[in-house]
């Protein structure tokens, strides 16, 4: 049963070359939502991870364990949780965020936040203790010390951001439950694949899958370029 795959590759090339308007629209929306949620989660997650790493407090081990457990939280569970919050009958119902791209950004941010917090802690722990000692012995202030350690940990941090983005762009649970897969408004690549497959359009699904992988490749190349000196 290889023919749908070949058909899909052919169709993907065709969609890309002709810049099919619907494909362009879905791709842009997918990028917007997943990049936004990665940005939001990074801006919250990295400082939060730093705070947890640099502060000594009771229950720190337990907190880190809990964060790490949340790496494997099912996307549909996060979707359901955020759905209940954003629904008009929920706590944040008044904001009318359910079935909107903004709602999806919130959902995906919640989904990947634990990843970014946890991997920030990991990557900071990976920096050797003697660098901290060295910085302090050279008369660095607290801020300068933290800055030096963050700088040393940047490769691991960018790895965490790539991982977070990968989880955001590839997930379907949050996108479907919060977005509702509305044509022209909240439909992203993964939900389109799911819909087209249930409509029996296997080739189009494969084409969209290929496009998603190409996007992931480009994003990774850009991030790798940034982390190189």
């Amino acid at each position: 049963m290889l023919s749908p795959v070949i058909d899909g590759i052919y169709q993907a090339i065709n969609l890309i070359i002709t810049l099919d308007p619907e494909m362009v629209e879905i791709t842009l929306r997918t990028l917007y939502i997943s990049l936004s949620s990665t940005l939001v989660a990074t801006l919250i997650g990295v400082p939060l991870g730093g705070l947890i790493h640099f502060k000594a407090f009771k229950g720190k081990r337990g907190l880190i364990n809990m964060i790490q457990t949340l790496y494997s939280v099912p996307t549909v569970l996060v979707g359901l949780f955020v759905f209940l919050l954003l629904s008009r009958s929920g706590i944040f119902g008044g904001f009318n965020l359910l079935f909107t791209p903004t709602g999806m950004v919130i959902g995906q941010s919640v989904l990947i936040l634990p990843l970014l917090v946890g991997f920030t802690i990991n990557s900071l722990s990976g920096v050797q203790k003697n660098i901290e000692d060295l910085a302090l012995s050279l008369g660095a202030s607290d801020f300068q010390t933290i800055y030096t350690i963050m700088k040393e940990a940047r490769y691991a941090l960018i790895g965490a951001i790539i991982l977070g983005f990968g989880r955001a762009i590839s997930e379907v649970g949050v996108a479907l439950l919060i977005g509702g897969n509305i044509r022209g408004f909240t439909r992203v690549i993964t939900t389109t694949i799911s819909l087209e497959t249930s409509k029996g359009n296997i080739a189009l699904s494969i084409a969209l899958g290929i496009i998603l992988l190409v996007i992931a490749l480009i994003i990774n190349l850009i991030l790798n370029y940034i982390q190189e000196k």
Partner: protein
Amino acid sequence: MNNRLLAAVIILIVVLLGVGTYVYSGAMDGKEVLVVATTTSLEDTGLLEEIEAAFEAKYPNIDMQVISGGTGIAIEYGKNGDVDIILVHDKTREEELIEDGIGTKRNPFAYNYFYIVGPSSDPAGIKGMDASEAFEKIQEEGEKDPEAVEFISRGDDSGTHSREKKIWKAAGLDYNNTVQNAPWYVESGKGMGDTLTIADEKQAYTISDSGTFLAFKDKISLEALITESPDLLNVYSAIPMNPDKVPTTNNDAANKLVEFLLSSEGQKIIAEFGVEEYGQNLFTALNGGPEPTALFSSFLVGQSELAA
């Protein structure tokens, strides 16, 4: 490296703001939003896409947003106040919804039939029976040889699933105890298209709305074995949410959609939909007539003539 990272973050934010504005502007642009929850069959066949295009052309100020799911989830969205109108096909639950004051009125706008479909070899020999007889036979043969005779159920609380349960009941079988746990009974938990694909892979029986089945006919090898049975009638209705219960609902636009669906323009789209692509109409328009109660599939002929 730091400057570069900072520059990258700034560029990213600017790009996102730009794309974000683009993403929203296309859809919003000062328009009012009408959120519609629909059963999968209306969306998967492509009918609603045509209705949406025509409706938005008529009311350029309304942005119709369609969320597709089973009847069960559509009703749940309606209860929560997350949608303005639902398009569903489960009369019993619809009437409950009206009684509870959550929906304002049932507006039947189209119908077709459920088909009992299965492999063309028909291992249980149900062809020509009526629906409940056929289910009884499938159960009998399934118990004898679960390898040869299987039934795939939606199992998702959708309108189709709820009809299926009614037929099991009409066949005198206890759904929860006898049917659901039987070795020949499989719950897919998915939409109609997926369920048809699974049934095709397993060469099993299932029940499908005729619209989705006809749209899928060329992709699968299953055959519609029973199409004429009084208990297979499938009526679709539109129910706007009650503004007294859900104050935020866009009742005005919801009523406009109902009006459009029932108008001769809307009914014509329904009656003609699929004729070109599938050789016959997938849905039958009511054309102002009363809601059908128990009919036979001979309507297909009449309707095609009308559409032609």
